[in-house]
C-alpha cells in the first residue's frame, strides 16, 4: 500500500523516512501516525537498512501535533484512544532494533516535539523552532512528552517549556540538551546524512544492543542493567 503522508528511500544503508504531507506543517494525524508505524516496521525488517533517518526535510516543518480542529470536539474517550495510538508509535520506535536519528529540519511543536523525543539522537538545523504549547490549548500532551522531556533536559527546564509554551531556538535547545547537535541550514542535510551513514556502517548487532541497554538503563536497577550488559557483551562474540 502506498504512503500518503511520507516517503521512504534506502541509500547507503540509511533508511530515509521523510514526512511529506504536502501541507506546510506535517501534522500528526491518525493517518500519519498509522503510516509512521507501518514505515518503521518496514524499515526495521529491511536488511539493507542499518540506521533510520526521520525528517521533514526539505520542508518548513519537522512535525507538529494533531489538527486542532479535529481535536477540539474530542470526548475523553476519543482522547484516550488517540493517546494510545500515539504512545504505541513511540513504544514501537523504542523497540526498533536500529538507531533512529531525528533530523529536526524546522518547526517542531507539540506532538512533533514528542516524536523528536522518541528518536535516539536529535540533529537540528539552525532554523529549528521547538515548543510544547499544550497549556495554551488547555491540555497537556498525551504522547509521552511529560515523561521523556524531564528525563532528557531535567525537570525544571521541562516545567519551563510546558508552562511558558514559548518557542525555543536551535541554540537554546542545544544549551538545554534537547538536541544533540545544531548545523547551519545550508550544510544541514549533508551533515545529517553523514552522521546517519557513519552509524549505518556499524555492526547491526552492536547497535541494536547499545540502543536496548541505554533505553533500559533509565528504568531498571544498576545491578539488573549490568547483568543485561554482560549478556549483550557475550552475544557480540557469537558468530
Amino acid at each position, binding site marked *: 500500500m502506498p504512503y500518503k503522508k511520507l516517503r521512504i528511500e534506502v541509500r547507503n544503508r540509511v533508511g530515509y523516512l521523510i514526512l511529506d504531507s504536502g501541507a506546510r506543517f506535517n501534522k500528526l494525524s491518525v493517518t500519519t501516525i498509522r503510516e509512521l508505524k507501518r514505515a518503521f516496521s518496514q524499515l526495521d525488517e529491511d536488511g539493507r537498512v542499518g540506521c533510520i533517518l526521520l525528517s521533514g526535510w526539505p520542508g518548513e516543518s519537522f512535525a507538529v501535533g494533531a489538527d*486542532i*480542529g479535529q*481535536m*477540539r470536539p*474530542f*470526548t*475523553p*474517550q*476519543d*482522547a*484516550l484512544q488517540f*493517546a*494510545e495510538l500515539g*504512545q504505541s508509535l513511540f513504544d514501537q520506535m523504542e523497540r526498533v532494533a536500529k538507531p533512529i536519528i531525528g533530523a529536526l529540519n524546522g518547526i517542531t511543536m507539540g506532538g512533533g516535539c514528542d516524536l523528536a523525543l522518541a528518536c535516539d539522537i536529535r540533529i537540528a538545523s539552525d532554523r529549528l523552532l521547538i515548543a510544547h504549547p*499544550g*497549556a*495554551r*490549548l*488547555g*491540555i*497537556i*500532551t*498525551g504522547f*509521552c*512528552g*511529560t*515523561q*521523556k522531556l*524531564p*528525563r532528557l*533536559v*531535567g*525537570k*525544571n*527546564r*521541562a*516545567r*519551563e517549556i*510546558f*508552562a*511558558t*509554551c*514559548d518557542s525555543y531556538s536551535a541554540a537554546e535547545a542545544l544549551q538545554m540538551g534537547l538536541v544533540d547537535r545544531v548545523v547551519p541550514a545550508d550544510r544541514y542535510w549533508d551533515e545529517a546524512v553523514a552522521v546517519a551513514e557513519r552509524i549505518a556502517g556499524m555492526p547491526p548487532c552492536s547497535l541494536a544492543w547499545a540502543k536496548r541497554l541505554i533505553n533500559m538503563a*533509565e*528504568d531498571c536497577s544498576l545491578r539488573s542493567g549490568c547483568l543485561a550488559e554482560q549478556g549483550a557483551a557475550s552475544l557480540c562474540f557469537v558468530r
Partner: protein
Amino acid sequence: MSEKICRIELEGPVARLRIPGGPQLSRRDLLGALRKQLDQLAAKEGVRGVLVCGQGVQFCQVVADGQLTSPDAARLSAFGQEALFALEGLGKPVVAALSGEVSGLGLELALACSFVVADHSARFGFPEISLGRLPAFGGTQRLTRLVGRSVAKQLLFTGELMSAEEALRVRLVNRLYGAAELEQAAMALLQRVCTRSPLALRVGGEVVDAGYDIDLKAACLLERDAFALCFASRDQKEGMGAFLEKREPQFTGD
C-alpha cells in the same frame, strides 16, 4: 507573624512571596510561616502563579539551631520536608528569582520550586558539611534528581558555593538575568505563564512530578489518562476554540 517572615504581595494573577529571612529567625519559624502562607496561596483562586524572592538580606537567612537532640532534629526535618512538599505540590507554577548567596535552607526551598531564575551575583551551595551536618529538607534528593549524582556529590562533599554561570550549566538555574532586571524579567515570565490554562499547568506539573520517579511505561500511562481527562474540561474547549478563532484564550481552570 507569618506575614512578617514571608510576605505575600499580589500583582494581578501573580503573588509575590517575599522571604527576607532575618538574623534572629529560626528554621522552624521560617518553615512554619512558609507553610501558613502556602495554605493562603493555595486557597486564593485568583492567584495563578507565585514568584518567590528574597529582600535585602541573604535569601532565607536563619540563625544557627545550636545543639539539637536527635529526635528534635528528626522532627524538624519531617516538618520542613512537609512544608517543601506543600510548596512543590501547590498546584500553581512557582518561580524562584534569586540573587546573592542561596545556600542551606534557601537552596532546599529553591529546589522545591517549579524552576529557578537568577542574576549573576547568585551562588548556590550546601555548606552544612563543614559543621558535620547535612541538608534535611529534601535537598539531597531534589538536587540529585535535578543535576545528577556527580554534581550533587560535588556540592554536598565540598560545601563550596557554585557560581550562577556554573549553576546554569548544570541545570540548577533555568535563566540568568542582569541584577537590575531580575525581578521584572521573572515577573514578566510568570505573568505570561499565568495566561495559560491553570488546569493544564496543574495537571502537567503533577504528571511530571509523579512520573519522574517511576518507570517510563507506567509514567506514560499516567500521562495518557491525564491527557484524556483534559478533554472533559472547559479550558480545553476554550483553548482550542480560541486557537481556531485566532483570539487570546480566557482560561478559568475549570
